[in-house]
């Protein structure tokens, strides 16, 4: 028990690192993923800006990236990571692959959320003479808000999982803690506590996301 008390700052430190990595990658991955998700929807067959070429290119790239497990992706893009942040280890070294891993995921989820916006509603505004940009920003994104919130919730939880693996490149965080104490030193207590913290974190985020989506969903 005493030893665990000593460990509190260590847990605090790891939790903080996890939050930094998740937060930072989430923001950037969202900034990249949402526009890509919009593109994926509007370039389709009979949508606002049909463009087979853009759609198929984007679709293929996203599929390729999404089919790689995070740990492999992280290793595979080491040269790219070094090019961007100058290192492939530590928190910075982990954030780049986390973004590359999460952005396509977010764009896929966004695609689904935006697809759920009723075509009839979009058509109604086209018929009233709204421009395509107005339809994207004032109709689609607004109507899809509950779906977008849920999509970001799922992406955040996915990121926490990936962040744990980023411990492998010495990025720190809860995953790294569990790996160092639990796997390498067989310290069951630390491992269990780490797991508990992770579970609580994920629960919190999911509940928060569900709550926000419900708030936004005035309909149904």
């Amino acid at each position, binding site marked *: 028990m005493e030893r665990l008390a000593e460990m509190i700052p260590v847990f605090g430190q790891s939790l903080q690192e996890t939050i930094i990595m998740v937060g930072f990658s989430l923001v950037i991955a969202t900034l990249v993923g949402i526009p890509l998700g919009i593109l994926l929807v509007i370039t389709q067959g009979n949508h606002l800006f049909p463009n087979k070429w853009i759609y198929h290119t984007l679709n293929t790239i996203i599929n390729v990236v999404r089919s790689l497990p995070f740990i492999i992706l992280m290793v595979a893009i080491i040269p790219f990571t070094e090019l961007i942040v100058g290192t492939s280890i530590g928190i910075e070294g982990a954030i780049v692959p986390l973004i590359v891993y999460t952005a396509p995921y977010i764009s896929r989820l966004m695609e689904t959320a935006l697809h759920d916006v009723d075509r009839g509603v979009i*058509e109604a505004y086209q018929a009233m003479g709204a421009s395509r940009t107005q339809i994207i920003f*004032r109709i689609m994104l607004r*109507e899809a808000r509950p779906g977008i919130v849920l999509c970001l919730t799922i992406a955040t939880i996915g990121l926490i999982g990936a962040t744990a693996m980023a411990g492998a490149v010495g990025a720190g965080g809860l995953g790294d803690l569990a790996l160092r104490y639990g796997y390498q030193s067989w310290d069951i207590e630390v491992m269990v506590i780490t797991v508990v913290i992770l579970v609580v974190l994920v629960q919190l985020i999911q509940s928060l996301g569900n709550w926000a989506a419900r708030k936004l*969903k*005035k309909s149904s």
Partner: protein
Amino acid sequence: MIQLTDIHKSYTVGNKQVQALKGVTLNVEKGQIFGVIGFSGAGKSTLLRTINLLEKPTSGSVVVNGQNMLSLKEKDLRNARKKIGIIFQHFNLLSSYNVFDNVAEILRMNRVPKDVIKKKVEDLLRLVGLEDKANSYPSQLSGGQKQRVGIARALATDPEILLCDEATSALDPQTTESILELLLDINRKFNLTIVLITHEMQVIKKICDNVAIMENGVVIEQGSVLDIFSNPQQQTTKNFIKTIFDDNVPSEIVDNIKQSGPAAKILRVAFRGDAALDPVLGTLSARFPVSTNLLYGSITSIKGTALGILLLHISGEEKDVEAGIQFLRDSVYNVDIVSREGGSN
């Protein structure tokens, strides 16, 4: 107001061509309520959607308010569309906006000043009878109320034309009635041209001035509602009218009539409210040695004009029957011989 000329539209589904419209020509006058009726898949929605070019015809010309719609650039097309309102079967309201914002959003997009929007939306909500629902969300409204929001939204840009794609098909008969009243009301108030599609003859009967009957991508018959009801030519039209005048003659009666002599006939007599029918039938039996027998009779109001339909069994000597029919033809709106050999139509 709207001239559609020789409109063709085909879709490619997989490697098959579906011809949704095969040369449709329509002319809608300003201030008219024009109905298009047809069975599912006849091409009604496709036709309606070519008016505002939601659907681009494969060939043909679309002229709305003197403008050739197919030659417009995107921006001009958008401006032209602002003058063509549309309402839908499933309302297509924004679920994340309340009633006020559902009506207001298109005005905000058009950069109308805030105070003007407020006044305008309040006026529109009063017009459709929803002034106390401004803060409700669509999910809190009944179908009829949702359609009222749809109508208010469609009128927000001061359109000259209102397109209605089965606007009452998702509503119960009473609500349908009240929505039709509202459409009639705004048609009169703003001299708004309305094109509505439906598969219910009741809707046509209640508010339309003119009607086109569609089948398999072509208009098989069109004209004033009174004319079409009095004297339908095509079988499909007759079938639609049967939903209002159920004038099928039971086969036992037809058999009886067969036995009453070779000259016996069943006549479908259409008369308008202003034609005095009693003296006509009286004169018929007084002047001609024929016997008449009323098989069916019904009278209905078509947008204010009464239209009566009678099925009359007439028998006697052949020449007397002929003369009697001629007399009827001269006296009432329309006479159709339903059965020559006594066969039911």
